[in-house]
């Protein structure tokens, strides 16, 4: 990976993932935030409130009476030209689903932090990715972050990509509860000037809802209209990858971070024979596992997906085709799906179907409800993937770390 020298001044700060998001919200100069508390999202609600109280950010901060209203408020504020920030977790996010489901069709670039949380019952705070994944087919762009630094970086990236005129789609940031939201690490924060260079002001243009620009949004429509509306969103979704590439190049040039590939990160894959593949905070134990096994001569690597929507199918097919086997780690479940595997697994298999070189793809379901994925569990997954690479018979889907 080549790292260029960042422009401008960067300051170091010890922050949690949610505090890092709040720092980016401040530098993005967000106009409206609507809040309703639920763990682990609520950390960002506290952090932004503190920035406003301390006079560091001038924004409307609206505490709603539910998540449903919270997301409606931001959707509407976005339509009148405000840059908005919103978020939730688990069942709170699901309660807002009526609003979430229509935001992409309205082509409003709402940015939401989804502090990933199990869908309770049972009452549980821990991470699972099923909450954010509920919008995966609806037009939301979804990015999964690895650590507090990426919380900051991806928030700026979300505004830049979502508000691009070729896109105008909402963006969800998947932030693993506890592992990222509740641990503090040192991050680098750029200055306002450099952020301004990366992120132009939010401009809806002729779609701005304003008395001087008489338009009406989302009237009743019948079958004569709906399919064309869907096709517009489909076209926009197809344009996103190009916009991400541009934004990523600018990001690296200005901030000196982000790696070579805008869509996923490859870790020690150069001569790898098999790799694990996953999203979010599992990058940390996975990398520790790869280093340990490499010391023992194993040709193992790790690929971490950043953008889950749009799914970088062609890019992944090209890279993963180099390996004999890929072990997909799902921090989610998809009951009754093909092979009873996870969501990521099923998507990746579909993406590789037309590829010239297809690795074997096996699946691991683990870390549900906030359970840790330890380096030792990663060892176990790497071992099964290695056996798959050698052509041995292994289960297509394995649950890791579940008590029998």
């Amino acid at each position, binding site marked *: 990976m080549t790292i260029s020298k960042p422009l401008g001044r960067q300051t170091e700060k*010890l922050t949690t993932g949610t505090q890092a998001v709040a720092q980016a919200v401040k530098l993005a100069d967000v106009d409206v935030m609507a809040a309703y508390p639920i763990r*682990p999202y609520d950390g960002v609600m506290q952090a932004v409130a503190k920035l406003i109280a301390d006079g560091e950010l001038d924004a409307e901060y609206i505490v709603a009476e539910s998540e449903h209203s919270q997301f409606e408020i931001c959707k509407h504020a976005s339509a009148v030209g405000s840059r908005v920030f919103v978020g939730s977790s688990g069942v709170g996010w699901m309660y807002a689903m009526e609003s979430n489901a229509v935001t992409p069709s309205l082509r409003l670039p709402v940015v939401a932090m989804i502090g990933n949380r199990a869908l309770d*019952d*049972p009452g549980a*705070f*821990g991470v699972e990715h099923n909450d954010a994944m509920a919008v995966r087919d609806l037009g939301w762009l979804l990015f999964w972050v690895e650590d507090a630094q990426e919380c900051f970086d991806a928030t700026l990236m979300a505004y830049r990509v979502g508000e691009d005129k070729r896109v105008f789609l909402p963006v969800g940031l998947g932030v693993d*509860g*506890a*592992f990222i939201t*509740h*641990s*503090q*690490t*040192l991050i680098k924060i750029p200055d306002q000037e450099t952020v301004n260079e990366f992120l132009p002001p939010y401009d809806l243009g002729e779609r701005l809802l304003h008395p001087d620009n008489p338009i009406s949004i989302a009237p009743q429509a019948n079958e004569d209209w709906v399919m064309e509306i869907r096709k517009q969103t489909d076209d926009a979704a197809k344009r996103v990858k190009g916009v991400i590439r541009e934004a990523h190049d600018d990001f690296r040039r200005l901030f000196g971070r982000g790696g070579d590939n805008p869509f996923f990160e490859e870790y020690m894959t150069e001569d790898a024979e098999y790799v694990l593949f996953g999203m979010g905070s599992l990058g*940390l*134990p996975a*990398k*520790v596992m790869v*280093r340990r096994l490499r010391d023992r001569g194993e040709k193992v690597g790790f690929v971490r997906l950043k953008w889950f929507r749009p799914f970088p199918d062609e890019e992944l097919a090209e890279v993963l085709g180099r390996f004999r086997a890929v072990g997909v780690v799902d921090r989610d479940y998809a009951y009754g799906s093909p092979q009873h595997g996870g969501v990521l697994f099923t998507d990746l298999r579909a993406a590789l179907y037309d590829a010239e070189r297809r690795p074997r793809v096996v699946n691991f379901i683990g870390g549900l409800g*906030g359970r*840790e994925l*330890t*380096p030792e569990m990663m060892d176990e997954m790497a071992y099964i993937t290695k056996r798959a690479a050698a052509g041995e018979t292994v289960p297509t889907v394995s649950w890791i770390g*579940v*008590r*029998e």
Partner: protein
Amino acid sequence: MSSGTEANTPPVAQDSAAGRSSTEVREEAKSVEFTYRGIYQKTLAANLCKHVVMAARKRDWLGSTIQRYGDSPERNGVPAKQFAVIAPDEMRLQEHMAKYEPNELDVITVLDDTLCDGVESWAFYGRQPINLRLRRGGTLLVISNRSAEELLKVIPRKPWDWTLAILPGTPSLGGLWVYRDDGTDMRVLGAIARTRPDIFEFSAVESVVNEDEKLGEEHLAALRDGYEEVVIHEVAAGVGKEDDYEPVRLPGYKEMREGIIVEARKLGERNPDYKTSSDRTMRPVVNFDTCIKCRQCWLDCPDECFDITEEGFHPVNYDYCTGCGICAQVCPVEDCIVMVNDLEFIEEGNEDVFPMWKEDKEAYHRWREEKIANGRIEHHDYFNADTWAWSGGKQADRTS
């Protein structure tokens, strides 16, 4: 246990250092735990973790802090933990961070001495020893006005030598919802610098405080006070309370009932799996002779911990009492229910004291009066107007 060593000769970390040079040991990642009371000390623990990392940063180390997520520290008094991990470089930091909760702690800091009796953030875990994950040669730092002998009656023994550092003072419970600075964080940092300079030197944390414009002379004074006042005791292997902790065996998915169902109890029975007494810093002591049997305590107790006897009295089942003090507030008879610091009951544990009263009323009253004289608590410290209560290491006057 050896006698307390001179405070100005900090012990060398007796790590499991066999076969390694002192430089190697010094360059290892370090983990510091802060065990605290939910809500009251949440911000205090967070402040401490942050300062450990910032002090380590002064020698170009990296660090991270972790709030143990499953604790739900938003519940008043619940034992909870935060960790600071520091390491000389990114690779070694990642090795440690890859395991969310550190397996071995170099320092465990106990922000309220009533936690020494064991911690139980979720009732089904069982009461875990305060020093469960203290590594060989590690340091347990406690804020307390009690002696090492007293504390070692509740702190379990270890199979190796370790260090008990006592920072004289009243545990600060001054952070209910809004954090109130009483200098405790500074004193604890000073004490860590004294006992474990391998974590950070005094000069490092001093310069962190100097550079923080929100902190002033009084904070520097508190930092120095902690450094000077901490008393260090070397504890030999085998000294301390018998360790009877057994890790809980959790059932597999084939054993569990489907549909997220757990066993409950019939009316009138208590659930032996949901005991909450480690949330407690103080407990009610009842005078059965002045009790008018009005049942207010029984009615208002949020944890339903009052039993009913044939005579119509209400003894406390201390296994279920969280020490909230509501019973003492609603009791209409003066001093019939009095709240007393929980560490006064090391001998009694959670035993029912009603049989003692039935058997020998005079002995019961002597016992009761002694407990009240030693440890009466009129109210939690968050009502205490004297925010810098540690001053001179003396307990603040609670009755004012």
